[in-house]
């Protein structure tokens, strides 16, 4: 584990696959061994790229995964793919039907995690799609309702998967639940399924949520019971691009006020760069977002820094620049915090 550090940094998950990896995977001539080798190389390049930027927690850019829903569902009994459904514009994802009891057929993250453990010099943080999101993104034709499906996924799929990862050496696990606030009325269901999935899992559990339609307001008070030590959330997407550390310049940070109001002891991963635009945030904007968040929380030690979400929507070059600008902003913020608050000097 990294030593206690002011504003530790991390990524959220995915990076765009390198073109040479895609070419190999699509090639009819490439053998299975060649494809596996290409995946290994892409994973290795990603680990070293993220470490090179200076992040404290790293993974492999999800180099082996298709995407966060289709990939796990391929390894879970009880699902049948139905076809493509639109996400936005002409972007589509494969959606599956639940037609029988859900069971983990094969631990779909174990090999990739072992590979990361072998090569990473920094702390690995493994992202795992959570049970509520898988349930919400599927057509339930088998279980009584979504709640029953989500809880069964938690008990029969996610929990055994996480336990094996811990046995293999995982200390930090990020459960991705982007759907958590999609239906505000169902936040208690998300919490219930999440807690079932991490029950008895001896690791530092983070939760990642993004693109909330209600500024994450519906999470409280339910998340006070969440068995997670850390929230990693998207904020930059909803914020302005103006510099400044007051309420008129920073927009969409209601969640931090709620954290403080409820005395929530968890730490927060602050999304400081927007992953849906190539426009590059100046480091000073990253700095101001961090300083504003530190002010709202009243304690900079409760903050970690990350991009809003996985960077796979951007080219690898832009993704790298986004991470570099994030790191420069973090340095500026550390300097400002040290200048104004001697306690911030670790």
């Amino acid at each position, binding site marked *: 584990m990294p030593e206690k550090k002011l504003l530790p940094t991390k990524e959220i998950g995915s990076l765009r696959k390198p073109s040479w990896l895609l070419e190999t995977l699509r090639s009819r001539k490439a053998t299975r061994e060649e494809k596996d080798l290409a995946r290994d190389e892409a994973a290795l390049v990603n680990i070293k790229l993220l470490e090179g930027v200076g992040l404290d927690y790293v993974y492999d850019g999800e180099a082996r995964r298709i995407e966060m829903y289709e990939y796990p569902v391929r390894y879970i009994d009880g699902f049948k793919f*139905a076809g493509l459904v639109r996400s936005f514009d002409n972007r589509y994802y494969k959606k599956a039907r639940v037609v029988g009891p859900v069971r983990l057929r094969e631990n779909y993250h174990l090999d990739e995690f072992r590979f990361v453990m072998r090569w990473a010099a920094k702390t690995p943080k493994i992202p795992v799609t959570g049970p509520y999101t898988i349930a919400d993104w599927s057509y339930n*034709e088998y279980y009584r309702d979504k709640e029953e499906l989500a809880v069964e996924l938690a008990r029969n799929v996610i929990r055994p998967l996480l336990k094996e990862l811990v046995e293999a050496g995982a200390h930090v696990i990020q459960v991705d639940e982007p759907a958590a606030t999609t*239906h505000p009325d169902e936040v208690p269901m998300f919490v219930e399924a999440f807690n079932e999935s991490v029950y008895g899992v001896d690791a530092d559990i983070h939760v990642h949520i993004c693109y909330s339609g209600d500024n994450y307001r519906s999470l409280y008070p339910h998340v006070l019971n969440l068995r997670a030590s850390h929230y990693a959330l998207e904020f930059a997407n909803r914020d302005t691009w103006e510099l400044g550390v007051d309420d008129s310049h920073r927009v969409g940070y209601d969640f931090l006020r709620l954290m403080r109001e409820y005395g929530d002891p968890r730490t927060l991963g602050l999304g400081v760069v927007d992953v*849906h635009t190539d426009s590059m945030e100046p480091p000073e904007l990253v700095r101001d977002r961090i300083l504003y968040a530190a002010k709202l929380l009243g304690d900079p030690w409760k903050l970690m820094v990350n991009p809003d979400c996985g960077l796979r929507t951007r080219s690898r070059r832009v993704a790298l620049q986004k991470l570099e600008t994030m790191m420069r902003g973090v340095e500026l913020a550390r300097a400002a915090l040290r200048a104004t608050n001697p306690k911030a000097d670790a």
Partner: protein
Amino acid sequence: MRAYTFGIYPRPLRLIAATRRDPEGARELARRESIRILALQDRVGLPLLSDPLLEWDDMLRWFAAEWEGMEVNGIIRYFEHNAFYRVPVVKDKIRSSGDVLRNHLVIQERGRSIVEVPEPVTFALMSKDLHYGSIEPLALDIARALNDEICPLENELAPALIAVKGPALVHGNGSKLAEVVAKAAEELLKSCRAPGILHLYFKSPIEAYRAIKGIRSAYSGVGLDVTWDPIERLSEELKGYRMERLSLGLVNSQNTKVEGIGEVVSSAEILGKAAGKPEVLVTVSSDLEFIPYSFAVKKLRILGRVAGGA
């Protein structure tokens, strides 16, 4: 029983692939695929035909892109779905040239066609307003612009129905804004001969329905997504229904599970009876684009059989 679909259909796989390669070049294919789906609607026995809107990336897109005073911006979650739309940004007074529907609809069957438009308050709530300052003037100008779009089609198509899509009204806005909804309906349907049906969907429509039924409006009926509430509860709510038409979204377009004909027909009969004597129409719960194309076709066939088709 008359039946129809409304909303955006899923794109067939070849259209998704063609659009990925060349969005502009795929427009001709989109038109051909739309004609194919319209022919399928006819073949399965639907008495009313609706444009599958294959060229539309979301329900507001072409209006936002082509009307004066508006532009298209970043993506925002589409209500409570794992789907997103591009938010229209209102920068100036909204004006329509009246060509958007004409240019982006394929449907041509005179007398059997449904013209569909977003409900103006829903449109306003889904937009980012940098000009009007409050919902009412924005919604009323949107209603006027939409009326400019519908009027030319009234003459050319003589539509059988105008389906007005109001999903934002079931997300806690219907009761707050019922009077604005009614005012906007007056503007929207001004001089229209075709009856307007206000569709409430994506969540239980009961609260919005309660608010809207108490206010006199230009709508000739409501369309209710009935997949959220027990039939008994809806029957209670529909007692004393006063409008001429009642459209029931009984075929679930959010789930792949295919309904039985008997169950759809019997629910329609129970609800129709509870409502008194309106004309009962049967439809989908919302856009079919939330299920893959092959399942949308299955749902379409169910609807055709409900309407008495083969």
